[in-house]
């Protein structure tokens, strides 16, 4: 049976008689609005980074000192500038002494107006040319902030431990297994009877696994710990108290704890912390002031968690979820599909596209429809629209504040998954090659798609320090419908 026929059959649901509106809504009048009791909302705050204060203080001190004894201090100032360059991995090659000092001053005063500064920073970020537009003063500032952060060092949370990497294996019969790799070579693969592997996280020389078995009661979840040699250390089953709970992205491990994160039906999440024997040692419920407390990915920052909800970064503050950063503006919105912490920085992957919930008149979609008409769009017009309006984004954010520090873009593409391995961050990007418009007859059969997109999958490779060290066409193609 072709998909078209399946859709046509599904369309027959439209023939169900819709009950009278008045009858259905009659009982709604008695439903008084309710709100779940929740903690007082915390206003959005931005902490002024101690590091930033330190750098600014250092800059102020240097400027004062430099003004008093300019000539006598020339050698000292130059040496300071060189130390600074070395500390932040900037290259002074090709610059005069005077230029080095000016670049140094331009950076520490955060003015970013000296023309040589861009050259110096570009030498440290040679892959930056994939950006869609040239760096302006603000862009340079962001690049520098990344350099500064990296120079200060940071925590590393890798998806591999000691060269060992773990992946979930999927079979057609819906049973999932576990595989260990070292330097890309398979060490072992298992399909344990005790648990159907869903999510995994390496912990020391072991790997924690979350999942269920098909006959498990609905509101239960299993957790297991496997040794380095694939033997089962333990498996336990847990009952959860809430009705609509779902385990979404359950695992996050530190040296001596396993964390399982669950989404409740309303705007809250549960964060369970377990010891390495599988005993629950802490249970927290965190709230979001509005909207589902849902998320695409999670990383741990210090004692708290940072959640990617698709277009916002949320941070756990006590038992509240605070919006750190909301991406997008009146014209554009961002759809982030994944997040990893890599060498102390938070990387978000996604796609930028025109905003279609814009209350102001005449956004990109409106104009597109007005220009071409709802029913007269050609494949070429749709292709052009997508290529011009969709941009793959890799956003690099400060884990403390959520503030974007730098970004990479690829026009006419959408951002794919992020993986970490071998001291490298890999960013997959689907670069659009062909777009075909598709329609549906039914108003309610809204999956009558606008576009069937063919794309080539490219991979960009980043170093520990956020520099692009390579790019390649994977040779893989993908087709997806939207």
């Amino acid at each position, binding site marked *: *049976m*072709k998909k078209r*026929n*399946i*859709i046509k*059959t*599904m*369309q*027959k*649901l*439209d*023939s*169900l*008689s*819709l*009950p009278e*509106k008045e009858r*259905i*809504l009659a*009982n*709604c*009048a008695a*439903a008084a*609005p*309710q*709100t*779940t009791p929740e903690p007082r909302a915390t206003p959005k705050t931005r902490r002024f980074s101690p590091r930033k204060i330190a750098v600014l203080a250092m800059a102020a001190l240097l400027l004062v000192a430099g003004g008093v004894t300019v000539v006598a201090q020339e050698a000292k100032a130059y040496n300071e500038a060189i130390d600074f360059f070395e500390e932040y991995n900037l290259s002074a090659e090709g610059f005069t002494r005077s230029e080095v000092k000016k670049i140094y001053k331009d950076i520490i005063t955060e003015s970013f107006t000296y023309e040589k500064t861009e050259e110096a920073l570009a030498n440290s970020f040679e892959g930056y040319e994939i950006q869609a537009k040239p760096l302006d003063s603000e862009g340079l500032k962001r690049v520098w902030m990344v350099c500064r952060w990296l120079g200060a060092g940071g925590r590393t949370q890798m998806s591999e431990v000691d060269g060992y990497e773990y992946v979930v294996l999927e079979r*057609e019969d819906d049973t999932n297994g576990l595989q260990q790799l070292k330097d890309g070579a398979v060490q072992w693969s298992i399909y344990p009877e005790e648990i159907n592997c*869903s999510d995994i996280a390496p912990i020391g020389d072991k790997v924690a696994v979350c999942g269920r078995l098909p006959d498990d009661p609905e509101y239960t979840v299993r957790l297991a710990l496997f040794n380095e040699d694939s033997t089962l250390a333990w498996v336990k089953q847990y009952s959860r108290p809430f*009705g*609509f709970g*779902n385990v*979404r992205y359950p695992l996050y491990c530190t040296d001596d704890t396993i964390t399982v994160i669950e*989404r409740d039906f*309303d*705007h809250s999440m549960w964060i369970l912390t377990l010891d390495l024997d599988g005993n629950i040692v802490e249970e927290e419920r965190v709230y979001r002031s*509005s*909207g*589902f407390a*849902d998320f695409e990915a999670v990383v741990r920052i210090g004692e708290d968690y940072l959640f990617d909800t698709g*277009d916002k970064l949320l941070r756990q503050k006590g038992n509240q979820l605070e919006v750190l950063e909301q991406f997008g503006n009146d014209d554009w*919105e961002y759809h982030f*599909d994944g997040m990893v912490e890599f060498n102390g920085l938070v990387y978000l992957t996604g796609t930028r*596209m025109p905003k*279609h*919930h814009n209350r102001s008149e005449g956004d990109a*979609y409106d104009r597109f*429809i007005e220009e071409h008409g*709802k029913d007269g769009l050609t494949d070429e017009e749709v292709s052009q629209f997508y290529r011009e309006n969709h941009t793959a984004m890799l956003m690099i954010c400060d884990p403390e504040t959520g503030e974007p520090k730098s970004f990479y873009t690829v026009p006419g593409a959408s951002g794919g998954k992020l993986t970490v391995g071998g001291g490298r961050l890999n960013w997959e990007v689907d670069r659009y090659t062909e777009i075909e418009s598709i*329609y*549906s007859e039914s*108003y*309610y*059969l*809204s*999956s*009558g*798609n*606008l576009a069937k997109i063919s794309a080539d999958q490219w991979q960009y490779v980043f170093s520990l320090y956020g520099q692009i060290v390579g790019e390649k066409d994977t040779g893989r193609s993908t087709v997806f419908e*939207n």
Partner: protein
Amino acid sequence: MASIKQMITDREGDRALRRLASGDRSALGNIYDLYGRLILSVAYTIVENTADAEDVLQDTMIELARYASRYGSGSSPRAYILTITRHIAIDNLRRRKPQASLEEAGDRSSDDGLLEAVEVLDLLRTLSEEERQTVTLHLYGGLSHKEVAKTLGITTAAAEKKYRRALAKLRQQYEC
């Protein structure tokens, strides 16, 4: 990304949900006009009879009225509403005694419209519960795989996998 029609519907839905959240109860009528049939149909594929589907529709509207403040502006109104619908429909299934098989649902059908709708249940009968919901929410509800994943509480990759497998099953079933 979605069809133009869906975008327009969802934009109106977003406005209506925000109005409802701000206390404008008349917005509930707009939500019914925009999504009533979708709610009824998705509920029907889960509870498999029209009486219970109408109950789910009503309970969904009540839930929307009661907890309108939970809707986050700018979210997908369609995904938000269908998540509630699915949960209520599953609760409806759990509460009632196991009695309504697909065949019985078909036998109870008395009008042409219902007979047509029963064909959908016949189509979906070989699929597991989650596969069935994946197909319904994606192909009929218009949710993206990502939104389907959120609604079902599974990963996007799992949602896509279930969807592909469901399509393969349907193809196999109807080509043999």
